[in-house]
């Protein structure tokens, strides 16, 4: 359940940004979560509601933008999309893949007041 720690990390960023960018309420948080990151979106939503209670982001809406896992297949020399880390190339079946997208866990944007 490290999603709780991640939510505490999100709250840290919100509090720091509130000072820098002069806002007092967070209404919506957009996260970009890669499908290959070690994050379970449902657990993150659950943790988010709990961690944000009593904070500047209490009752804020959490919007999760899921990003596909992408990799370069060394065997067929192409960019491919994979669902899981253990997937082989959907075109040729090889496991010699270099993952190059879908591992991110980013706070992208906020709607604030």
């Amino acid at each position, binding site marked *: 359940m*490290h999603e709780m*720690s991640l939510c505490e990390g999100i709250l840290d960023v919100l509090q720091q940004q509130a000072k820098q960018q002069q806002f007092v309420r967070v209404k919506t948080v957009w996260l970009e979560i890669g499908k290959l990151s070690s994050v379970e979106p449902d657990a993150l939503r*659950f943790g988010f509601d709990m961690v944000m209670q009593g904070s500047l982001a209490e009752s804020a809406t959490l919007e999760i933008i899921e990003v596909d896992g992408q990799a370069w297949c060394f065997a067929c020399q192409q960019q491919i999309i994979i669902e899981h880390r253990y997937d082989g190339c959907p075109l040729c079946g090889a496991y010699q893949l270099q993952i190059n997208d879908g591992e991110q866990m*980013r*706070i992208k944007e906020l*709607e604030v007041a």
Partner: protein
Amino acid sequence: MCIDCGCSAGDAKIVGHSHDHDHSHSHDHDHDHDHDHHHENRLSPAHAHAPTINPARMVKIEQDILGKNNQYAQVNRDYFHQHKIFTLNLVSSPGSGKTSLLTKTIELLKAELSISVIEGDQQTSNDAERIRATGVKAVQINTGKGCHLDAHGIGHAIETLAPEDNSLLFIENVGNLVCPSAFDLGEAHKVVILSVTEGEDKPLKYPDMFAAADIMLLNKIDLLPHVDFDVAQCIEYARRVNPRIKVLQVSARTGEGLVVWLQWLKASHSVALIG
């Protein structure tokens, strides 16, 4: 007093160092996710809300959620580099024989290298005591309900432990094949330990950890005649998620395979000394 974060965790009691969160945890709210997603409107710079006292506005953030941890990890990494401390982060599920492997490694290596250990567990100082019994320095971090060590806690543990220059530092993470994979502690390598009493498909079940590790130690190989564990299949699975992972087969109990592990440790430590 911590220079980086201002928290008052400078004393020797890493055990019990915690950040309290006084908010209540009420679970009776509904989780209703039926709302529409109107990104195109909200993201549009031209959108406008009805004027209020505090008009809503959009703020670009573009920050890694783990950014703070990564900053602390970089501070730790710089410290290790500056003091030429070769640091390994040992990760595994509970019961893989991590601590036994560590005590055995220390026994075999302590005459040649200065070694210290940071132990992570949710509760108890049992493992730090086992390590101290070998004669090397160890501190225990109790994470309480936390499921992993983080770079901030490691920074404080380093202050308490004061590992010697040119030494070898082992961080034994909380037994958990999920969460520690995401948290950089500033280590040179994550080493994942898997025992043959577990399933050979663990690398597929917990791919993030095997992808994050540079080395897999396959432990308890003395038990292979007694268990249904397909070594070749396990290694093949590990390489599916991480084609570059090094695999060493060892037994902490009989000492089999430890020579190669010690050679790797000494060689990597020598490389760390070069800088």
